[in-house]
């Protein structure tokens, strides 16, 4: 759970009641609480946390601002149960959280949150939720201390500047053809030498005859790439070629 919360204003509770509020003696069963962000600010919600006080069901609606600037109310949580049995105490004073993954729509670019509280039981004098907090999504480059080499191992799918190298998709297609060729070679094994295959723009892949596939990553694809980037070095695309026992292929880097 993130500790960051977004500063927001919780408006006073509004009662929804049929009939005249002053003359009607029965207690209301629906309350609405609006939580608004400062004007102009939007948030991508990760979590909404609060402390329950005898509310049985809660629905959450969000005022989302889409790309054009128009705002629209959408329901992201419908009748979420906080008290399994509204007449009894179970769950009545629990701390609850509603997470992004539970919501029906993506809670992004939200300017306002509306909590609709329902308590159908007449056993309780009052009900509400307290301590409402909205937690925003954490960004990728947050202050988490991940060492450099750990991010080296994760393959980030980036559309990076190719610097004259061919498109990976076309290369992989031609590699597929080469693989088919090796299959053919395997089935018709001869003692004649194969000759050299010359493929442009493919990084070096050294394949040994023995058991393990030993793959060295190309040292440098282009030196300019390393210098211009900040942060960890992203390894560009490399290709595996499945190994066959009697066939060795050497390709060279252009």
């Amino acid at each position, binding site marked *: 759970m993130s500790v960051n919360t977004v500063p927001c204003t919780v408006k006073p509770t509004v009662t929804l009641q049929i009939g005249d509020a002053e003359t009607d003696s029965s207690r209301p069963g629906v309350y609405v609480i609006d939580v608004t962000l400062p004007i102009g600010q939007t948030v991508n919600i990760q979590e909404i946390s609060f402390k329950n006080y005898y509310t049985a069901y809660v629905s959450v609606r969000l005022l989302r601002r889409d790309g054009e600037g128009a705002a629209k109310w959408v329901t992201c949580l419908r009748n979420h149960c906080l008290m399994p049995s509204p007449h*009894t*105490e179970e769950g*009545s*004073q629990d701390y609850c959280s509603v997470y992004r993954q539970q919501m029906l729509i993506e809670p992004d670019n939200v300017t306002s949150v509306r909590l609709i509280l329902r308590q159908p039981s007449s*056993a309780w*004098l*009052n009900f509400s939720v307290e301590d409402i907090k909205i937690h925003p999504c954490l960004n990728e480059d947050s202050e988490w201390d991940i060492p450099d080499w750990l991010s080296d191992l994760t393959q980030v799918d980036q559309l990076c500047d190719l610097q004259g190298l061919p498109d990976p998709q076309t290369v992989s297609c031609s590699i597929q053809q080469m693989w088919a060729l090796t299959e053919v070679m395997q089935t018709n094994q001869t003692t004649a030498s194969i000759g050299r295959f010359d493929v442009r723009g493919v990084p070096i892949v050294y394949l040994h005859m023995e058991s393990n596939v030993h793959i060295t990553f190309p040292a440098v694809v282009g030196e300019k790439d390393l210098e211009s980037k900040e942060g960890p070095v992203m390894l560009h695309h490399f290709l595996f070629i499945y190994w066959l026992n009697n066939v060795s292929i050497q390709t060279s880097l252009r």
Partner: protein
Amino acid sequence: MLLIVEDPTAFTGCFVIHLFEEISLLTFSFLFSSLFSLPSLSLSLFHSLLPFLSLLLTLSLSSQPLPSHPAAPPEHAKEPLAYMRKAQVNWEKRILKSLNSMCTELGVPLARKRPAVEQKELTNKWNEMGTDEPGKWTSSQSICSDRRLNTPSYSISHDSQVLISLRNPNHDSSEEASAKSHWGLIQVPLHDRDIPQMREAYSELSLTTGQLGIDDHTHVPPGKTRLICTELAFCQDSAAAQQYSRQGCPTGLRADLWALILNSTNEPEDVMHYEQLKAGVIHHDLLVDNLIYKDVKLTASNDDYYFVFEDFLYQVLLCFSRDTAVLEHFSYNSATPPKSYIQGKVGVEEFAVVYPPNGVIPFHGFSMYVAPLCFLYNEPSKLYSVFREMYVRYFFRLVCVCSKCVYTVCGIVSLCLQFERLLQTHLPQLFYHLREIGAQPLRIAFKWMVRAFSGYLSTDQLLLLWDRILGYDSLEIVAVLAAAVFAFRAENLMEVTSLTSAEAVLADLSTLKVMPLIQIFLFATVI
């Protein structure tokens, strides 16, 4: 404890992780950072070390915090309802106040070291403490005969008063009679189960299933039952023993089965632990020992079944007061152990110590939790460890104000409410009549439930009841039995006209057979 981890990828050397009793978060993060700084560390090593590291963390925590929301404070995890926490705190304050006033009025310290002569004498007389005057081993001969000790720190009636006065400030308890009005004394709207739900939960007690306590009286040879039982004892399968216990345990094997269910061992280290506690008793005298002496003399010694075990009771209870391992149960008990300060340093936290050392102040009737176990175990260390386990699992719930049903074990508040609801639903005429004559059923049944019927039923029946408590891991069956007793004597109760005569009808339960009553109430009631 040393944990040596070797790098499987032939990293030079190996590193040793020392596991301390309480591994702090700082140490843990240090381990992590040291791992990451190693140069040739590969992902596979990290993955292989992960189970070791998680083992480190789990081993170091002696009692896990309860699962709860990250924003919830720890007292909320133990007891979510604010008014119950408040009631518990007030109750504890009153008890501590009376203990402190007893201490100051009588001029006796909370703890004192025994002189060498007294220690020697007590060691010699350890097995016969019951034969002496109760005041012999306390700092003042007059204490135990003091009038003020005749009303113990807290008594049963005090407990029930606290529960009856529990009110939820947000609950609409208007006085008009309505469909949902509750006639009983407990006015807290906790969850309870009705009979159809209980029929499902207690399906092993149904009329068509054989029960020990009923069917063994028909002289059917034990045969298969005994075989299953010895097999269980041999296989040391605790869960299977618990399941088996739901239908009752054979008398000869009950001791082993209970020890198996409670995971209570009698290894040399347990015996040594008990000996250490015994040494603690000999060296120091605590004020609460007087409460124990008085309680044993008033309750167990006067009981026809248990008076022979007086010595055992002293040996167990005095050691229990000094056992700090019991403090671990406060991680899920919403009560707070009382603290005392070294003389002159009141309020300074570094000089605070839990008093009594186990955090539990004995009360009137406490010895009745131990007494039935004396029939099963004759070795004091074994008896002690079984009793301690039963206390931290079940009996502590009978003496604290809590609403949370963790693992389906109910506290005394839920038990009382369950009893009243069952009675109101299935015996409304009886309940109404008793209410009218001023004999609220809870006033009679409370003392049964708070002692789990110990001292009221005959011992063989009591042990059959406790078999089911262990088997279902819940005290709920106690509330069911209380309602079943009322149902059994309903005809007589309908004719009484006052509280005293109602109590007289229900005074003697020693002839009752527990299992038929429960079976009839749960499975033969027309709903």
